[in-house]
């Protein structure tokens, strides 16, 4: 993640969370935190508890982040009331913001903003789609992940992989547009989740799992060595069993599927035919 990306990310994040940027340079952001953001990021629960008790006027802090020291104002450390924080990809603060984003951006319900150019046309139908964006992790003594996005049409069961890549080209809004109606789903959204899970698991089972075979082989090898270590003792001691357990814990291959976020999308155009215009974001 480049520092410019970090900058852009934080700017959008605070903007979307009612925390306006008061001052900005290519290397820094000075932000007025909202009450919620102060509570989430500033770690001062006693202040907020106290304030609620006495019913005082909240005074959320301002926060300054530096994304590029060289492009920030020279007096950055004295310019504001509170100390500026340097933020880069590895800094705990950014990861805190990442986690907060995931919490705040977990479930959506959006409608396609239909551009109606002909008023005489009847109300337009919007098809319900269920989207789930998942992280699939392959884990033994090593680990890798991949992202997997799926969309399921809740009226006919059509499933599209890489759904998010289509979704991002739609103009969307949170309220249903005028003169549109939603087609009622034949598949309940909750069953839709199950369908997507089953399909994802089926696909994973069909993958090549050499990595898991290798992990099993290493596990067997280490357990074999462990057995050799205790080959003098007549009965295997407790330590053998707990060490064996630790080896199994280390190598046992497991694939975990976790949903990053997802939601319901009511779409007029079919995702595979959506007009691909350049997004302004």
């Amino acid at each position, binding site marked *: 993640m480049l520092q410019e990306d970090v900058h852009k*990310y934080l700017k959008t994040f605070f903007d979307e969370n009612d925390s306006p940027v008061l001052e900005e340079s290519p290397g820094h952001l000075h932000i007025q935190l909202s009450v919620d953001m102060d509570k989430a990021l500033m770690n001062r629960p006693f202040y907020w508890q106290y304030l609620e008790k006495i019913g005082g006027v909240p005074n959320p802090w301002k926060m300054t982040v530096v994304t590029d020291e060289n492009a920030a104002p020279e007096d950055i450390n004295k310019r504001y009331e509170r100390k500026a924080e340097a933020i*880069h990809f590895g800094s705990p603060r950014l990861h805190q913001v990442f986690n907060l984003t995931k919490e705040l951006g977990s479930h959506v319900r959006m409608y396609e903003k239909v551009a109606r150019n002909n008023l005489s046309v009847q109300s337009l139908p919007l098809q319900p789609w269920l989207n789930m964006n998942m992280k699939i992790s392959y884990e033994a003594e090593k680990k890798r992940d991949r992202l997997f996005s799926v969309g399921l049409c809740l009226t006919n069961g059509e499933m599209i992989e890489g759904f998010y890549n289509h979704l991002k080209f739609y103009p969307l809004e949170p309220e249903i547009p005028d003169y549109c109606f939603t087609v009622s789903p034949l598949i309940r959204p*909750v069953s839709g989740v199950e369908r997507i899970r089953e399909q994802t698991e089926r696909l994973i*089972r069909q993958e090549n799992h050499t990595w898991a075979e290798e992990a099993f082989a290493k596990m067997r090898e280490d357990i074999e060595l462990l057995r050799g*270590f205790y080959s003098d003792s007549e009965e295997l001691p407790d330590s053998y069993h707990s060490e064996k357990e*630790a080896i199994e814990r280390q190598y046992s291959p*497991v694939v975990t599927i976790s949903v990053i976020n997802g939601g319901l999308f009511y779409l007029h155009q079919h995702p595979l035919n959506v007009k691909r215009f350049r997004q302004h974001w």
Partner: protein
Amino acid sequence: MNMPELSFDRTWSDSFSSRLSQNGPWSNWNLFRLALQAEQHLVINDFDGLEAPKHLPHLSIFPHQLEAAERVLTEMNGKAILADEVGLGKTIEAGLILKEYMIRGLVKKVLILVPASLVTQWCSELNSKFFIPAVEQRKSYVWESCDVIVSSIDTAKREPHRSVIYEQDYDMIIIDEAHKLKNKNTKNYQFVRGLKKKFCLLLTATPVQNKLSEVFHLISILKPGHLGNEEGFTKEFKDADQHEELRQLVQKVMIRNRRSDSAMDWPKRIVKTVEIEFSDEEMELYNAVTALKRRWNKTHEWSIFPFTVLTLQRECCSSREAVYMTLKGLLEQEEMAPALKTELEGIMEMVQNVTRHAKAEKALEMVQKIDDKVIIFTEYRATQLYLQWYFAQHGIKAVPFRGGFKRSKKDWMKQLFKDRAQVLIATEAGGEGINLQFCHHMINYDLPWNPMRIEQRIGRIHRLGQEQDVNIYNFSVQNTVEDHILRTLYQKIGLFEEVIGKLDDILEKMREEELETHISNILNHSESDGEVRIKLENLTACIESGNEEVESRAAGGRA
């Protein structure tokens, strides 16, 4: 068919269905997009390779450290002995490996066991350099409530901590100065052996190849069975012939970078021998002590004491205070032959008559001339105290440093040295683990007879992060045991020289204690200086032939 287990996390689907039934709340679309964007940055597409450096843009990581971390992850499955030579940054390697596992989500619960004096340093390095929220063990509840804990073994092995720790399933255990765990009968060893762990890093600066049982026990902490069972191991590796095979086995779990291999520009070591001439009184004392040897050393009257004349001789070279302490102890013994007692009392009187101290004078002169931070190492506590007092008399601030100091006191002393005092006077036991890169001058006030310890002393200042050349001054009193050791042995084998890594070769030929014993024997059992010289030369030759063997083996391996 070996299928991995599949597990689907239902957290999201559960809250999705509750939002469906309550008709919301629904998230903001832009935050939804940002969340995916964050994941795209965080996703790790490959099993191998290092992610950690991307997270640590401010840390300068050397190529040998990156390579070490990568090998531990890909070839060693996260179980390794990190045995780089002193000063090459093993802590950085360990931090890098830990960080990588934490980023990948393979490690969460970590126990880091280090000498008490290093707890604070480890903690602050992990936090400031690696952004790993490591916590010092201060209260007993941290074992359960915190994920990354730094503690000393001595604390951890005691109740009530011990049983709580045994209940934890650790993902990773890191042990610094692991060579202290070589004896399987110690409580520390057994404690560590019983810890539950997935991954494990053992850090040590001592090469282990040749100490067979120690290798075995160290590796048994890491990976029991890697060298078979104990009985089989002892049988199989009895002869030197099998050492190559053993070496290969050990190399599968050990990384040892040497300074000579690393492509870095090391600051130079400038080594100077400072010869000192005893004052007349000191010479007289030294001669009287030496004379004891001829008369008493091999007799029964003497042998009941745990001291040798050699000890006294070495102490004479250090300070009269050091001799005094030993003599005093001797004279308190009750079953001493009266003739011996009289003689020792005579020597005691001579000790008290010594007024000038040539070595201390020289040290003072050097410290004043250097006009910069100086660390002085001595083997004797009495000397340490004396020097501190002596320097104070001349308006020079010196702080002491000893192994026995509490953790907080060590930190405090180090800070005092950095900010306020010109001199730090350390005894041997205080040598390990303090990093004093801000200091460029070291005086070996007296020399230990174990080359590993000399290397450890030098490693305090000649290490990664040292930006200037390092000056090492070896003090040696003319015509004494010190003189022999320094000139005939250490200088000939090039112990202090730039060609580092030589120490490994010496130790590969001979155990470190063995070398110490050889030296003592030679000095103890020789009738004349000439004999001492010849015997030491033989020892030197023996060590050097070892080097050739090692070199030719290395060359053969390359061809």
